[in-house]
């Protein structure tokens, strides 16, 4: 989850998010390069009384400041397209989970083998147990096995929502009447938090997402227990 005074991304918990982090570093490096160049030139230009009233045109500099930005854009576009196609790869998922947005909670359905479904409501602030996070924890968490490709099918029952978990590098709109597919692999065990990322009414901020990644045998025990309780 995010922590106070945080400036950058949350630690990556999936291979795709790691790639996104590295791409962001690459793009930011280019941004700093251009920003220092422009800032230096601005300061150099405003700190002189020298002028030239007779500048008309110059082929050389026009070529330079057309070709150079084009090269920089190619330098950004190539890794960007690489990661875009990486995110879309069909990766033979081990599990498919449906996440459906409602006003104002998420419901999850695991229907690969049995019909397992449950709702996930935010824990109200007055009901928080010790150690739980305000506005982030839910009564039921979405549990997934680690190191397994998971396919998410995301939709909504009423208005637009968006299922987002930053540390897994997933954000996908939940559109009524439409199934959107997203995929991720949880690289390590842990608990990962997210929040609804599309305006959906008064309680958009109060329908968080919690993903719990555990080893496969514990995931199987959990799903059996949930089916018994249902």
């Amino acid at each position, binding site marked *: 989850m995010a922590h106070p005074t945080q400036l950058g991304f949350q630690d990556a918990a999936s291979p795709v998010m790691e790639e996104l982090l590295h791409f962001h570093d690459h793009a930011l490096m280019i941004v700093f390069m251009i920003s*220092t160049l422009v800032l*230096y*030139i601005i300061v150099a230009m405003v700190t002189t009384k*020298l002028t030239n009233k007779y500048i008309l045109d110059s082929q050389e500099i026009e070529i330079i400041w057309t070709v150079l930005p084009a090269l920089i854009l190619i330098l950004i576009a190539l890794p960007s397209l690489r990661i875009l196609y990486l995110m879309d790869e069909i990766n033979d998922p081990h599990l498919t989970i449906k996440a459906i947005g409602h006003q104002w909670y998420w419901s999850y359905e695991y229907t690969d083998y049995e019909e397992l479904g449950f709702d996930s409501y935010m824990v109200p602030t007055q009901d928080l147990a010790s150690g739980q996070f305000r506005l982030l924890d839910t009564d039921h968490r979405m549990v997934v096995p680690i190191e397994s490709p998971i396919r998410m099918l995301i939709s909504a029952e009423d208005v637009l929502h968006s299922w987002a978990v930053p540390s897994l590098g997933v954000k996908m709109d939940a559109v009524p009447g439409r199934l959107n597919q997203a995929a991720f692999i949880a690289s*390590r065990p842990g608990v990962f938090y997210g929040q609804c990322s599309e305006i959906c009414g008064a309680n958009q901020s109060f329908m968080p997402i919690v993903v*719990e990644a555990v080893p496969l045998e514990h995931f199987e025990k*959990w799903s059996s227990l949930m089916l018994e309780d249902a």
Partner: protein
Amino acid sequence: MSLQKPLMRGLLAKRLRFHLSIAFSISIAAAIAFKYTVTEPRKQAYADFYKQYDAVKEFKAMREAGIFESVRPSGE
């Protein structure tokens, strides 16, 4: 003895040439500095983390700390 005629033209161009070369050098230096102080250390940090990572051991530690709801600590 006559004084040499002072340079009266091309002053702005001369300044531009001087400062543009410094500007490009500083911007490339900024990019290289960012790459070797942020980008490469971050890649190395992730590689080092996963090289020694024992998912089972970490999971057990997290479980005993009571973080998970699907799996309670072994005492419970």
